[in-house]
Structures are given as C-alpha cells and as structure tokens.
C-alpha cells in the first residue's frame, strides 16, 4: 500500500507535464496534496506493523517526517494557484512537475527502509528541486541554482561514499545485503566501528550540506533568496526535513552501535556553529528573504543540537521539525506576498508593510515571534524543552550557548522584521497591484493555526508515533517522562 504515496504524486507530475491548461495544472497541486495527506493518514495507522524485510514502509520516524512534509506541501499547494495566477508571464509546467515530483520523492525517502534507497531519493530530490530554484530565470537565480547544484551534488556524493562506508562496516561485521535499517540496528554490535564512524562523518557532511548546517549551508541564502516564497517554504521545511531524516537514520544506527557519544559531540558542535553562523548574518540583514534562509540554518542547528543533547531533547528535536516547517512556511509565504507587493525584498525599500499588506505583514510578524519561541506556538515548546534538557542533563555550556545565541538571533532578526513590518511605506516605491486576498493568506493562517494547536495539544496517536520515533532515533525503548509531557 505504501507505494501509492510515491506513485500518486509521480503520476500527478506526469499528468501535469501533459496538461496544457495552466489553471487546470495549477489546481492539480492542491488536489494531489490533499489526496496525499488523506492517504498518508490512512496508511499511518499501520506504522506499528512495518515488515522487517521490506524495502519500503512507513515506520513512526518516517511517518512523522512525511506527515510534516505532506502538511507543508498541502499548505504550499493551496497557496500555489493564486501565486501562479499572479505570475502569468511564467510558464509553470516544469514548476508544477517539480513540485509534485518532490512530493513523490520525499515519500520515497520517508518510506525507504534501506540507506541506499534513501540516498537515491535524496539525490533525485536535489535534481527535481533545482528547476524550482531557477523559476525566475534570471542571472541571479541561475547563480543560485548553480551553487545549489554544485554544493548539493558534492554533498550528496559524500553521502554516497558514507553510505558505502557503512555498508562496508556491515560487510566487515559479516552482515550482508539487504541492509535494511532495522537489520543494521539489530546487528549494530557487529558493525566495524572505524568504518561506521567514518561513514557517519561522511553522511553527516553530505546530508548536512543538503540540510544546510553551517558551514555547509552556503547555498541556502542564495537559493532561498532568489526563489519564490513558496519554493523557499518547501525547501526550508521539506527538503531539509528529508535530509534530516536521512541523517538521523544513520545516527540511529550509530546510537544502536553504542557510538552515539562520538556522534552527539559532533552534532552539538554543528548545532551551535550553525546558530552562531546564522547570527553573524542575521544581524543587520537587509534582505528579508535571506534573513529567513539564515533562520533556517539556525533551526537546522537547533534540530541537530537537540539530537546531540539527546534524552528528552531528541523528542523535542523531532517535534521541532514539525514546528519549524509550519512556521517557516508562514514566514516564507508571507515574505513572498510582501515581496510581491513591493517588488523588492530589501530593507530601505520595504517598510511599513503593515499598511500595504496588513494580513501578510501581521502573519510575518507573528511568524517571526512564533519561530523565536513565543508561547504557546509549537517552536516554543521545543526550544524551551531543548534548553531545559540541555541545562539539566549536564550540557550546561551547550544550553547556555544555545540561549545566548537565541538572544542574539532575536536581536538581529527583530531589527529587520520590525523595520519591514512597521513604519510608513516609502513613497518612492512604486505600488504593485498585489493585494492580500483570502487565497494568498488563508493557507498561511491555517499553517500558523496548526503551529498554535501543536503547541497546545498533540493528539494521542501522534504522540505515540512521536514517542516511537524518538525511541527509534536514540535506541531507547521508552521516552523519558518530562516536564512538558502535558501541555496546558
């Protein structure tokens, strides 16, 4: 049954390629998105029963990530028709095909039970998203695409080598094909430690490049800055989630092999470095889309930091994946709307957005506050608990650095965001015909609403799934009971 989640979007992509009417093609996106989400919800009920020898199948971890991606895709897909209608000059055949293709490949990645399959899915994801980055077809977007592709390809090549190393580690330990994750984890004790470590390092660098961990993230601001907001949202919440999934699957093998200390030290380092690097570029950032890109780097840092700290933080890192994806979609899409309205994404030109596009600007502001940890939005729950776990489980320095960096980032980000949102629109700036409509804002409101709900209440089945996913990642059987187990 699981294959249908992959086949449906791919079939839709093929259809999109064949359909010639732009409006019909545009409507294919939400239709596929919602269908995919519904199917996913049905299939997810069986996450407990993935056959151990299968090549494809949704376990809790994959299900959780795919659910995030599917919801995110739905939000973007519902936003897409109105956005594409605003840009009639662009043919969106390739665009639609790429979007749908991405969904199919993300499903493949989430369902992959084998590191090789996961790698293939990741690789192809890079390929199908490249045209999205090039959507604007100008020199700047070409440059962004070039950087995205070269860095992405180098990264993915390293990930392949890493995957091969892990396979060799298994080979050394006498574990032979097929190397499903669960087999790797069960037989983790037999894997060759040096090869496993080297493999982890290579996959970390490889998938880390795709995720955008500093200093491997350098393609990110360029790519996010030059694409439409909708692509930014999908890249920041979707592609990064895919890479993160591929990475933590390998981490899970490390953890099962008892090598997690080594891995976690590196992850904490990457997490803090990413946040610090993001901080440097967020202070005084005049381009609000690049600002969001650095914010994405920051939050990728938080994700790996959470995994690195371990314990309860692992669970909240996974939770943060969802929180970040939802809020980032709000931010990127509202930034896109503001960009549309001003025909600029740079600071001296874009001020007083609250007066031109009140809804989008309000959502942008709220999204900013949410992503920086305003309760009761979901990112607050994860950020607070990651900090609390760090401080109470002996990672005092990491916890303190985490909070200091959050403070600095807030300082930098708030400066730009407030300037964009408040004040008076500069009179010289030509006013484009763009106005906030229900179609361009409703998906954002839904996303923000979901982030709010998630901060207050996680439905029982989802919580069970999250717990199981956490157990998968760090190899422990039961999740630790924690302060924020119950949310008000």
């Amino acid at each position, binding site marked *: 049954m699981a294959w249908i989640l992959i086949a449906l979007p791919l079939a839709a992509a093929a259809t999109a390629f064949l359909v010639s009417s732009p409006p019909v093609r545009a409507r294919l996106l939400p239709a596929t998105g919602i269908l995919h989400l519904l199917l996913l919800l049905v299939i997810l009920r069986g996450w407990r029963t993935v056959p151990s020898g299968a090549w494809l199948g949704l376990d809790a971890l994959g299900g959780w990530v795919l659910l995030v991606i599917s919801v995110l895709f739905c939000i973007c897909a519902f936003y897409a028709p109105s956005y594409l209608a605003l840009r009639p000059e662009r043919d969106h055949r390739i665009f639609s095909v790429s979007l749908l293709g991405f969904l199919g490949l993300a499903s493949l990645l989430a369902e992959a039970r084998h590191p090789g399959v996961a790698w293939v899915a990741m690789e192809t994801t890079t390929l199908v998203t490249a045209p999205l980055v090039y959507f604007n077809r100008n020199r700047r977007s070409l440059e962004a695409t070039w950087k995205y592709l070269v860095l992405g390809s180098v*990264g993915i090549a390293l990930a392949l080598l890493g995957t091969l190393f892990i396979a060799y580690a298994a080979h050394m330990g006498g574990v032979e094909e097929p190397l499903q994750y669960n087999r790797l984890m069960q037989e983790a004790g037999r894997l060759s430690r040096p090869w496993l470590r080297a493999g982890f390092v290579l996959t970390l660098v490889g998938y880390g490049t795709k995720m955008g961990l500093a200093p491997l993230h350098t393609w990110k601001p360029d790519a996010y800055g030059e694409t439409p907001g909708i692509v930014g949202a999908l890249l920041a919440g979707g592609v990064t989630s895919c890479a993160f999934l591929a990475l933590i699957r390998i981490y899970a093998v490390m953890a099962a092999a008892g090598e997690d200390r080594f891995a976690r030290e590196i992850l904490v380092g990457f997490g803090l470095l990413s946040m610090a690097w993001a901080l440097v570029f967020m202070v005084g950032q005049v381009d609000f889309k690049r600002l969001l890109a650095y914010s994405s780097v920051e939050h990728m840092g938080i994700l790996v930091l959470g995994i690195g700290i371990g314990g309860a933080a692992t669970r909240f890192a996974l939770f943060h994946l969802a929180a970040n994806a939802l809020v980032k979609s709000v931010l990127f899409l509202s930034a896109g709307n503001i960009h549309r309205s001003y025909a600029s994404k740079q600071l001296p030109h874009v001020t007083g957005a609250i007066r031109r596009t009140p809804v989008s600007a309000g959502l942008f502001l709220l999204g900013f506050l949410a992503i920086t940890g305003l309760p009761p939005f979901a990112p*607050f729950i994860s950020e607070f608990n990651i900090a609390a776990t760090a401080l109470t489980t002996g990672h005092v320095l990491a916890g303190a650095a985490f909070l200091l960096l959050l403070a600095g980032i807030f300082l930098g980000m708030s400066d730009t965001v407030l300037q964009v949102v408040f004040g008076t629109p500069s009179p010289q700036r030509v006013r484009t015909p763009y106005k906030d409509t229900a179609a361009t804002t409703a998906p954002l409101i839904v996303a923000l609403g979901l982030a709010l709900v998630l901060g207050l209440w996680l439905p029982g089945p989802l919580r069970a799934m999250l717990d199981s996913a956490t157990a998968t990642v760090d190899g422990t059987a039961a999740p630790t009971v924690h302060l924020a187990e119950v949310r008000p």
Partner: protein
Amino acid sequence: MSLYLLAVLLAAVSGLPGLFLRRRGGGVAAGLMGLAAVLGIAAALRVLAGGAAGRLGLPAAPLGSPGLLVLDPIAAWFLLPVLLLSACGAMFGLGYWGERPGARLLRLVYGALAAFLALLVAAAHPLVFLLGWEGMAIAAFLLVMAEDRKAETRRAGWIYLVATHTGTLCLFAAFGVLSAQGAGAFAALPRGFAASGSGTAVFVLCLLAFGFKAGVMPLHVWLPPAHAAAPSHVSALMSGVLIKMGILGLVRLLSWIPDPPLWWGALLLGLGALSGVLGVAFALGQHDLKRLLAYHSIENIGIILLGLGLGTMGKSLGHPILQALGFAGALLHVLNHSLFKGLLFLSAGSVAHATGTRDLDRLGGLGHRMPWTSAAFLAGAWAICGLPPLNGFVSEWFLYLGSFRALALSRWPWSVGVLAALALIGALALACFAKAFGAVFLGMARTRAAEDIHESPRSMLVPMGVLVLACALIGLAPALVAPALDRVVAALGSPAVAGLPALSGLASLPLLSALALGLLGLALLLGLWLRPRRRDAALPTWDCGYAVPSARMQYTASSFADGPVTGLRWALLPRIHEARVRGLFPGATRYESHVPDPVLDRAADPALRLSARGLSLLRFVQGGHLPVYLLYVLLTLLTLLVWMVV
C-alpha cells in the same frame, strides 16, 4: 475561582465586540473591562479576606503539580492593581485615544494584555507562567507600537522587544534548571537548594529575567523609551502593573525558598539602592514628562527591591519582624505604586492630549484651565514622594521601620545604607516632582500649545478620580489593608517560623490614621480661612518690581533641576550644549542640557553598534565564491575525519 476566570475571559474579549460595532466599541470595551475588574477584584478580595485559594487544574492532573492556575493571596494581591488599572485605563482610553484609526485593534490588544496579566499572576505552572509572561510582553509591544509611524516609537518598541525577549530566555534557563527539581517546579523548594549551584543559577537568572521586566538598573534600558512612546493609558498599565510582574516573579521565587543565603538579600538591597537613587537622579534630568515618570518607575522598583531585600535578609537571619516589615513594605508599595503611577501617567496623558506635547519646557500654567487634571497630578506627586497622608508614605514607613529595626540586629550596620538610600530618594523625588508639577501646571504657559487648551472630558477624569480615592483610602486608613497584607506576607514567610507577626502589632496604624485625618482637618480649616475674599486684590505677579514679566522669564524645569543635576554630574554625565557668550552686547544664545541614559545610550547602544560592526567584519566568510564554499565542505570533512582518527 470562577469569578476570576470570568474576569480574565471578559478582559480578553473586551475588544472583540468593538471590531463589529461601527460606534461605541470603546464604550463596550470599557464596560466589559469594568465588569471584569469588579468581578476579579471581588474574587481577589475574597481570597485576601481569608477565603480559600482557588485552583484550576487539569482533571486528569498527570502534571504532578496541584494546579495550573492558583488564586492564592500573592496572586490576589497582584490581581488588584492589574484589574483596577486595566479598567481605569480602558475608560481613560475612550477620551484619550478615541476612534482614531487603529483604535479597534488597540482595544483588542489592550484587552488581551489585561487578560494575560491577570492570567500571569495566578500562573502556577512554568508553561502557563511563560504563556502569560510572553503574551503580556507581546501585547504590550504591540501597544507600544501603536504610533509606529514615528521612528522614535519604532525604536522604543524594538528595544522593548529585545529586552523582554532576553529576559524571557533567562527565564527559559531558570525554569529549565528548576525543572530538574521535579515536575512541580512551582512549589516550595527543598532546604539547601538555594545554597547549591543550581540555586545560585536560578536566582541569578531570575534576577536577570525579572529585573529586565521590572526595570531594575542597569537592566532598565527599555523602560524610558517605551513608556514615553506608548499611549498614556498603556504607559499607565505598563508602569503600574506590567513591570510589577517582574516583582511578582521574584516574590514567587522567594516564596518557594525556605532558606535564602544572606547574599541574596544583600544583592537585592544593593540593586534596590542603585535603582532607587539613580532612577530618581536620572528622572531629575529629564525634560519629557513621560520619560521622567518612567525613571520614577525605576526608582520605585528600587524601593520595592529594598523591601524585598530587607525581607529576604530577615528570612535568612531568622528575624520575623524584619521579614514582615520588609515584605509588607515591598508588597504594599507594589500596590501603591500601581495606583499613583497609574494616576500620574493618566494625568500626564491628559496633559499630552490637551497640549500635544510632553516637553516640560513647553508647558506651564495648565492649572488654570485643567484644574482637575492638575489636582490629580498633584495627588499622584504627593503620594509618590511618600508624603503623608497619602499611601506612598505608609509603604515607605514600613521600610523605614524595618531598616531601623535591622540596625539593632547586627554589629555591621548594613541597613543604614537602606535608610540613607530611602532618605536620599525621598528628598530627590520631592525635588523632581516639585519640578514636574511646577513646570507643567504652575506659573504661566510657556508656549501657545499650553495656552489654548481645555480640561479633558469626564471619561478621562473619572478614572483619575478613582485612583486618587484609592491612594487616599490606603493613606488614611492603612489598617484596612493590613490584614490582607499579613496574609500575603505569610505566603512569603519561611515555614520554619511558626507565623510572622501581624502588622497591626508592629505599627500603630490607627494612630497614623488619626494624625493624618488631623492634618487634613487642620489644613482644611486654615485653607478656608485663607481663601480669597472680596476685599482681596488680584494683580500680576510682583516679580520684584519688574514691570513686564513674561512667561519666558519663568524658571524652567531644567534650571530648577540644575542644582541637583550639577551636584550629581559625576553620575548623570549630562550633555550640555552651550554657546559661548562673546563681546559686550551678545546676541541671542541658547543653552540646552540632556541627560542620556547611562546604560542604553552610553553602554548598550555603542556596544550593539560595535558588535554589529564586528559581526559585519565576519561576513567576508560568505563572499559569494563557490570555491570558497566548497573549501568549507572540504575543511569540515577533513576536520571531522581528523577528529575521528585522533
């Protein structure tokens, strides 16, 4: 409890009907807020009168802590000013803000702020507390930004947002460390915790977090600009109750600690003295009425901290009387300051509303045309200077009593510092409010703006009147609040001491009331005797015989404060712009003095600018060259591989 919840709900939705009504939305909002205040205050009074504390917990209670919201005496005590001031502010807003564009949104957020404040005081779980805390902060931020077209407002809003968020992150850390103490972190902590490393961390972090909110020097950076920029009824609410939430936080923390180390109290005292003295000193140098009031909030937070410090010292030393007097003084001052500072901000708003300026040197003589506003401001000034027979005197009196008592406690006379600080604060505050009231309401109008004015509408005067009455009530009959105060103080006491002595036994409150009434009666009699009679003449001011006195010849606020400001220039570092006078017949010249904020303008701002420049120097690392980016990948890989091998 249900009354309280209803009040929170009403406050939260008070702005909603206005979104759909074409007119009268403000009236509805004010009405709902008033209703919320009545209900909530009734609930609070019931608890303060000895009723059982209300609780709201999740039915399943897997939380391990007794409730999410608990309306205990501490909560009830803080709830009083929250709701009273919210209601007064909402009503004041009717006339002050009216139906300008954005008024609906303003009311909506104002209601939300009131609701979050009311939620926060009763929060009994870290996450609920943080929810209320941040909700309050963001709502207040949006209100500060009400006039975001002004660059000054945007800057103020940004500074506020950054300061409050920094504080919140400290709170994250503090609650994080506390969470190791078990799920019920909002409950009494074990003995010995305070002296441990975690205890120290929690205290320092809480001090930072709550200090930012309360505006303790040197964490007060956001306070003067934000209070000046916000609409006045919002300033009143912020200065009156929002900054007190920092105090609430400290009070909660102290209430969980059975054995605070001695240095906690000492640090609180030190910070209190610093805030108090410097707060009032900087207030003296201000020209902007609302900034001046804002610095006085810093001063009063200092006084409150002095009280908390005294109480904490008493707790550490096992001295119940000191504990009772210190905490009672602090808590009563919390309420008092809300009342008179709310009153002062509202009357300052009334002035700004009528004249369109807050610059002291452009006002003057408003007392003639705005008699009620001027009387209200005078009452506020009277109270904030701690002069009898108003409420400010009572709380300061408790603190004096406490620190005099502490003199006998040990050979080392630390409390003489408290006495000196209180006395100095009192004298400077008096000078400052004489300056403020004199410059705004007395003498002659210095500009046209101050001349063509009229008294504010009744909707603005009534809230001021209510606050004046409240100030007078506490000042004249402190015995009425003493039992309630005893209950709140008891919640702060250490469980080891069987019970703290009642205030009525420590201070002769009825005698004080009698003297206060005597003073009033005497003044009334004398005043009646003096009031102008038909025989009396009305002439221009004599001015030593100068024939054409003009308004410009009046002593300005800056000149008035020049003495103390010059005396304190080593601390205030005023910037003086003065043209040199040349020749026998010099032309027109001007003199200006500014007192920049020591932390914001002299430290934080330059430091931020410097670090921003420093960070921008680091930006070369991402210069757009793909090979360099690839080099990073390579270097990362090599580093990790080497790390792995080594």
